[in-house]
């Protein structure tokens, strides 16, 4: 059977991996290609780049990073952030990305999902959903989790699947940065609503949070950033914890 995936996420701004998406305290961590390569060699099952560049030059640099990554990294990788048009999707896939993730653009123009899926296949279309608890429901948030679209996150996940998304990257705005574990309730709700793989994101503070989400939900993958970048834990440590708890994992 298909192994659960452990995915480090790299936020890239103007060609450099940075910590945090806020302007305050933004810190450069290193070269994206080098970091992706290191993660792939130490057991990452996939890499996700999120381009948070503010400029066109920055986004052009991302295409170059994708080309170099395609040459040097031997695991699949996804690129998201700033994907607005089918041309953006085409450019990133042609540069060698395995998948492209779309977030706000898919909310504003759901046809983009359909178009990308029809042209390149569902396997390379990831729809990223930032969800925040509002009463008994979750709302889709955009603009880094700050703008409420009033869209129901569960309904939106179903819509994304119907339109041809091959995967959902689900970030809980509520648990993101809290380091107290994934949002199990949200993850469970979305996993049950769709038949495509879901990647859980937001809230990892220690390796044990991965087996927790894998055992409590049928999620396909878990994503984390800071615990890997700050060398708090390696991918291998996370995988060892998962294997010890009986999760089906590709050995690092």
């Amino acid at each position: 059977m298909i192994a659960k995936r452990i995915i480090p996420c790299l936020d890239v701004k103007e060609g450099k991996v940075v910590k945090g998406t806020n302007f305050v305290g933004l810190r450069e961590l290193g070269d994206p290609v080098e970091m992706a390569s290191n993660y792939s060699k130490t057991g990452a099952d996939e890499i996700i780049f999120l381009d948070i560049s503010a400029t066109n030059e920055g986004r052009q640099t991302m295409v170059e990073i994708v080309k170099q990554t395609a040459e040097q990294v031997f695991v699949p990788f996804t690129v998201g952030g700033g994907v607005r048009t089918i041309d953006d999707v085409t450019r990133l896939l042609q540069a060698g990305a395995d998948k492209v993730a779309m977030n706000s653009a898919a909310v504003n123009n759901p046809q983009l999902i359909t178009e990308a899926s029809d042209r390149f296949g569902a396997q390379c279309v990831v729809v990223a959903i930032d969800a925040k608890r509002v009463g008994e429901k979750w709302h889709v948030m955009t603009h880094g989790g700050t703008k409420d679209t009033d869209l129901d996150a569960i309904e939106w996940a179903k819509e994304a699947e119907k339109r041809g998304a091959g995967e959902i990257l689900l970030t809980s705005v509520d648990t993101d940065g809290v380091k107290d574990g994934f949002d199990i309730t949200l993850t469970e709700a979305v996993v049950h609503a769709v038949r495509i793989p879901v990647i859980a994101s937001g809230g990892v503070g220690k390796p044990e949070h991965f087996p927790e989400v894998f055992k409590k939900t049928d999620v396909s993958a878990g994503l984390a950033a800071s615990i890997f970048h700050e060398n708090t834990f390696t991918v291998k440590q996370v995988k060892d914890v998962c294997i010890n708890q009986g999760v089906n994992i590709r050995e690092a």
Partner: protein
Amino acid sequence: MIAIVDYGMGNVASVRTAFEQLGYEVEITDSIDRLEAASHIILPGVGSFQAAVQEIQERNLAEPLRKLAQEKPFLGICLGMQLLFDKGYENGVSDGLGLIPGEVTRIETTYILPHIGWNQLQIENDNQAFAAFQEKHVYFVHSFQARTAQKYLVATADYGTQVPGIVQNGHVYGMQFHPEKSGEVGVELLKVFLEETKSDRRQIV
């Protein structure tokens, strides 16, 4: 020199790097002269069977590829592996290269398609060359699978149904997964292909 057949079906940057890391010169080419000069032929591919057959025909590569497969080690990757068989049923029926007897049809499983992700290899027919890869994870992305005789199976994966992972007929090999996306294990698998075809020049049947 290892030649990667360039026929417009997908990015092959990491296939190239993988072979370069194993110490080989690599060319990405659709020139018949260059393919003939190569020691090994690699047929990659992402997309649909029918579209790939069309691209191959437009470049008049079908006959040269069949001939090259008689002469030198040949490896099809992902869609490139599917093209090794007689027929494909994706977007209508089209003829493959006919290098391994069998057909390519949609995967019949209760699991979701495409079959995407890291799945484990089960070594078939007590294959010794690939024995070390038993239960190793490799990266699959596909919705169609080969249907062939047991004797051509080197490895399979379980996805609610048996999915051929590695197939072989003499020095013609196919890998349904992406070795170039399968980490170190993938590169090791390419190494075994190179070693096996070095020592073993069995003709295809």
